[in-house]
């Protein structure tokens, strides 16, 4: 079976066969918590679809999204970096499917197979570029621009134009209160870029949305394609 996960797909056929017997297919329901703050990480996940959100916590019940990983990436990056836990919380915000691999087995595979290790380290570089541009956007861009950026990032990681997200999730993604999300969606809708209905956002004019998002979108995506391969 061909992989849809971009990292697994980018591996050489020989390296794919190294991993394949250890992968377990599983469904990742919206809301599923994959990683808890400061708890040992037991598995690594390679999503084939859906979206996971990496949250920097402010206390026990508040936080802001600092990273996004879907079929472009993996969840459980600390294991790749010789760490066994993270202060972040990671959960599925859009239901998907994927593969999981036992953490100890994963580390063993990395030790023995430089090709796999190198590709996944290049993903760390691409992901870290994404988070730095999230920092840039959070400091320099309006909520509307950040929402546009976020919708594009989400759109990149799926096949169709319908993004199933509630305003509550978007508020967490953008670190704002819900009415700011309502207003921002209304603005983008007024421009004709999207259509927002309850729990569903439809991307209508992708190119215009990219232009609107400005400097927040494009650089991390180009870096990903340079280091890994096709993102969308």
């Amino acid at each position, binding site marked *: 079976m061909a992989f849809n996960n971009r990292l697994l797909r980018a591996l050489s056929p020989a390296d794919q066969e190294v991993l394949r017997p250890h992968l377990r297919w599983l469904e990742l329901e919206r809301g599923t918590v994959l990683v808890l703050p400061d708890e040992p990480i037991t598995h690594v996940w390679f999503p084939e679809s859906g979206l996971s959100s990496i949250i920097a916590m402010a206390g026990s019940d508040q936080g802001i999204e600092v990273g996004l990983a879907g079929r472009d990436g993996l969840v459980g990056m600390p294991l790749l970096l010789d760490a066994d836990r993270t202060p972040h919380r990671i959960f599925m915000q859009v239901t998907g499917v994927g593969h999981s691999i036992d953490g100890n087995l994963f580390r063993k595979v990395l030790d023995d197979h430089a090709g796999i290790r190198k590709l996944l380290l290049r993903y760390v570089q691409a992901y870290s570029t994404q988070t730095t541009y999230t920092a840039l956007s959070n400091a320099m861009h309006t909520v509307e621009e950040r929402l546009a950026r976020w919708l594009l990032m989400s759109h990149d990681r799926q096949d169709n134009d319908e993004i199933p997200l509630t305003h*509550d999730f978007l508020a967490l993604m953008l670190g704002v*209160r819900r009415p700011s999300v309502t*207003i921002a969606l*209304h603005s983008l809708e007024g421009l004709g870029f999207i259509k927002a209905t309850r729990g569903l956002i439809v991307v209508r004019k992708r190119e215009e949305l990219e232009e609107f998002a400005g400097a927040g979108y494009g650089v991390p995506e180009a870096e990903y394609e340079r280091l890994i391969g096709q993102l969308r």
Partner: protein
Amino acid sequence: MPRFFLHIDDGTQRIEDEEGSELPDLEAAREEALGSARQLWAAAILRQQDIGSRRFLIVSGDGSIVELIEMDDALPRSLLDRLKI
């Protein structure tokens, strides 16, 4: 917990809060509207925009309007007084 909807009305149109949020009571809904109004003001000021004509309609789960919160209600009294000179 009861569900409250925070619709925004600018005099000509109403921007619907389609999902609403679960909040402990009306006081919490009021605080949410005031905090949100400050956030909207902050963004509006950066755009040199006046949103003083907008208001929040706090609507309960059964659809009835339980309170109006003017955007101005979220600003410090002294600031409003100065603006009205």
